[in-house]
């Protein structure tokens, strides 16, 4: 029992110690702040700031609670119109700053506090959605939701030269996920009216849409839609009651390779997607048919937490590939995924080996391993074909430059045999630590991993027969010089194989970071290689092979 509890605790600690791309949190930050800002500005546009938040006789603020326990802004500045306006405008400024990611943590804390003050000042106008958005803002204050597409990220990169890590703690997303799930479940079990159940004929939605205080349109269409509304009511209840299944469905979706009949069925029926789609339709339906203000949009603003950041990155990459960058950006109006600088879709392919570039931080190799070593990568990376192009023979020494988590190590190790050597290099010590452990775990006795800066190949000159550079070349700044270093590292007759993304590829870095094959070939030539473009079948990449003369240069 004690051991079991200890194991559970370890699993919990490990879960909350995970890191991931910040895309989901960034998107939530922008959308939640936009929803709050839009809602507040609506009050300003309708000229009801005083009406809502000031005490009588100027407004409808709930003065009696102030007598008992006034909110701190009222204690400090007094109850009146000026205080209401002061708190309102501080909240507006904080929401705007949070949206653009300027002084993000401070903005989030101030916004949460000011929204709470506004809630205390007008409790009857402070609805469930306000509680939810306030909770989300408070959680965002502790997250790295400013790691991309924010003024903070821009300043860190451009001014302070200390960019944010590519991976950020995932626990705030998990907590927001749990909040969304609980919110729906709680809403479901608080629906006590029989109109929400079969005894009331699932008539709740028809009833609500007939209420003139909430309905957007008059009710003349309702008699024709009653069966549909009954289905909608039943679906709403099912959706809310089933929300605790979402974490399980998400886990099953992320681990399809694991055994289990329920997992297989749920994944085949796409139950997770069905649940999310029901929620989206539900809220858009509410936005179209009811006048509930920010409620449906505020709810949808939290939906990105239901997705793993990689899913959003892939979706954005897919859109960009089909619509072009600006159209995709327009379509995903708040798609923060582009980052504070044009970011690639967070494909494992791009991240693999990317640590050769000094700007990138890969502090936790374990977090990257799930992405870099995903089984799906083999379909487009074609590692056997890539290793085949190296023409390795037993006894050779091969350098895997910027090897990341060591995706190619097992294949390279097998190809050079027990008398050969594989040297895996990376700029990031944690990647090197990971590869060392991996080699031991996978019993790759001929593999060693070393830290190598961007201006060093990592092996003694003239000691290697082959070099493999996968998805790394475009990260190297002084490539001509690096090509010359590579040439020095290789023995006469040695060869380098460079694999990188085509300009048209739907994967990989931003297009302006990509290199045409001709450029790579010219750079290798400048380093002293005889080059050729290899014939291969990689769908998204090209392969340039550089060879040294057999008898030295």
């Amino acid at each position, binding site marked *: 029992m004690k051991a079991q509890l200890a194991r559970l605790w370890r699993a919990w600690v490990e879960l909350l*110690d995970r890191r991931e791309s910040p895309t989901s949190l960034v998107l939530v930050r922008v959308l939640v702040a936009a929803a709050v800002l839009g809602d507040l500005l609506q009050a300003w546009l309708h000229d009801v700031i005083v*009406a809502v938040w000031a005490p009588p006789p100027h407004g409808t603020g709930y003065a009696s609670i102030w007598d008992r326990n006034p909110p701190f802004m009222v204690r400090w500045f007094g109850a009146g119109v000026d205080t209401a306006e002061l708190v309102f405008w501080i909240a507006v400024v904080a929401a705007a700053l949070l949206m653009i990611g300027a002084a993000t943590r401070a903005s989030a804390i101030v916004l949460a*506090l000011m929204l709470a003050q506004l809630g*205390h000042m007008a409790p009857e106008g402070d609805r469930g959605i306000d509680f939810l958005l306030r909770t989300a803002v408070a959680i965002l204050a502790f997250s790295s939701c400013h790691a991309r597409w924010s003024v903070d990220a821009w300043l860190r990169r451009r001014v302070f030269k200390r960019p944010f890590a590519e991976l950020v703690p995932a626990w705030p997303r998990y907590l927001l996920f749990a909040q969304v799930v*609980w919110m729906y479940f709680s809403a479901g079990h608080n629906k006590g009216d029989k109109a929400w159940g079969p005894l009331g004929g699932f008539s709740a939605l*028809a009833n609500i849409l007939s209420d003139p205080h909430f309905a957007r349109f008059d009710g*003349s269409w309702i008699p024709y839609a009653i069966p549909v509304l009954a289905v909608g009511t039943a679906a709403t209840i099912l959706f809310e009651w089933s929300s605790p299944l979402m974490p399980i469905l998400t886990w099953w979706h992320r681990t399809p390779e694991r055994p289990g009949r329920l997992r297989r069925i749920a994944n085949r029926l796409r139950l997770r997607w069905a649940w999310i789609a029901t929620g989206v339709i539900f809220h858009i339906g509410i936005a179209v048919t009811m006048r509930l203000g920010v409620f449906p949009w505020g709810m949808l603003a939290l939906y990105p937490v239901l997705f793993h950041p990689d899913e959003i990155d892939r979706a954005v990459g897919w859109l960009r590939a089909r619509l072009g960058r600006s159209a995709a950006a327009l379509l995903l109006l708040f798609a923060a995924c582009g980052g504070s600088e044009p970011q690639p879709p967070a494909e494992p392919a791009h991240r693999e080996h990317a640590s050769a570039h000094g700007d990138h931080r890969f502090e936790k190799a374990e977090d990257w391993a799930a992405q870099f070593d995903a089984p799906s990568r083999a379909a487009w990376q074609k590692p056997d074909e890539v290793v085949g192009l190296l023409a390795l023979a037993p006894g050779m020494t091969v350098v895997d430059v910027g090897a990341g988590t060591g995706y190619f190590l097992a294949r390279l190790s097998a190809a050079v045999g027990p008398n050969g050597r594989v040297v895996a290099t990376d700029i990031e010590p944690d990647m090197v630590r990971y590869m060392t452990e991996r080699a031991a775990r996978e019993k790759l006795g001929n593999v060693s991993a070393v830290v190598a800066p961007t201006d060093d190949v990592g092996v003694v000159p003239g000691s290697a027969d082959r070099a493999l550079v996968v998805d790394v070349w475009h990260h190297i700044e002084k490539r001509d010089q690096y090509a010359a270093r590579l040439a020095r590292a290789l023995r006469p007759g040695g060869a380098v194989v460079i694999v990188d993304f085509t300009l048209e590829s739907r994967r990989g870095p931003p297009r302006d970071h990509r290199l045409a094959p001709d450029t790579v070939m010219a750079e290798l030539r400048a380093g002293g290689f005889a080059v050729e473009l290899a014939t291969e079948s990689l769908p998204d990449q090209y392969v340039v092979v550089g060879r040294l003369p057999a008898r030295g240069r």
Partner: protein
Amino acid sequence: MRRSWPHVRAGLVALAILVGLIDGCPIPPAKSVSPEWSDDVKAWARTRRIVMTPFKPLGELLRLRQTWKLFPTAKLRQHRMWVEARKTGTKDDWQLLYRPHDPDHELHADRIEYRRLRGVWNPGTKGTRSGYGPFVEWLAGEIFEERADVDRVRVRMEKIVIEPDAGGFVPSGTFELEKTQGRARWERRREKETGAAAGAAGGSR
């Protein structure tokens, strides 16, 4: 500290989730609990109050809670608000100014229907909320500012019966929750405030 931080963080997150669940755990209203369960429910409510006490200041500071209600009821007996003004010098010449879904009477509709303001005037299952009176007072002031020809503003709720089959609702023609505000009172209050403001400005000089 660096090594123990993941454990501390995991503990804090677990605590946050646990406290949220305790806070959000439903407690049925006393009247709907059968007598044999009544003591258990009371004990649970007491326990929750005690457990939540240390977290109360934070909950109040950020005004957080974990009980969520999205249209918990969908009752058939509802209300429709009428805002009316009386012509000066008449006894009973009331003009309808606002009524939901009435395109001929939509004075200040955007403002009245702003969701936070609707939260103040829309009657709940237990009748009007405490902001209803101040709402009428505020709305009357807005109307008196614009309309010199009216001396009284009345806000009342027409009882309606929801009948989706009949195309929405059926008005009953009977009203309740009526509140009125007279111009004379509004003007007195305004003069008082103007005087107070002038006094304060004079004092500050």
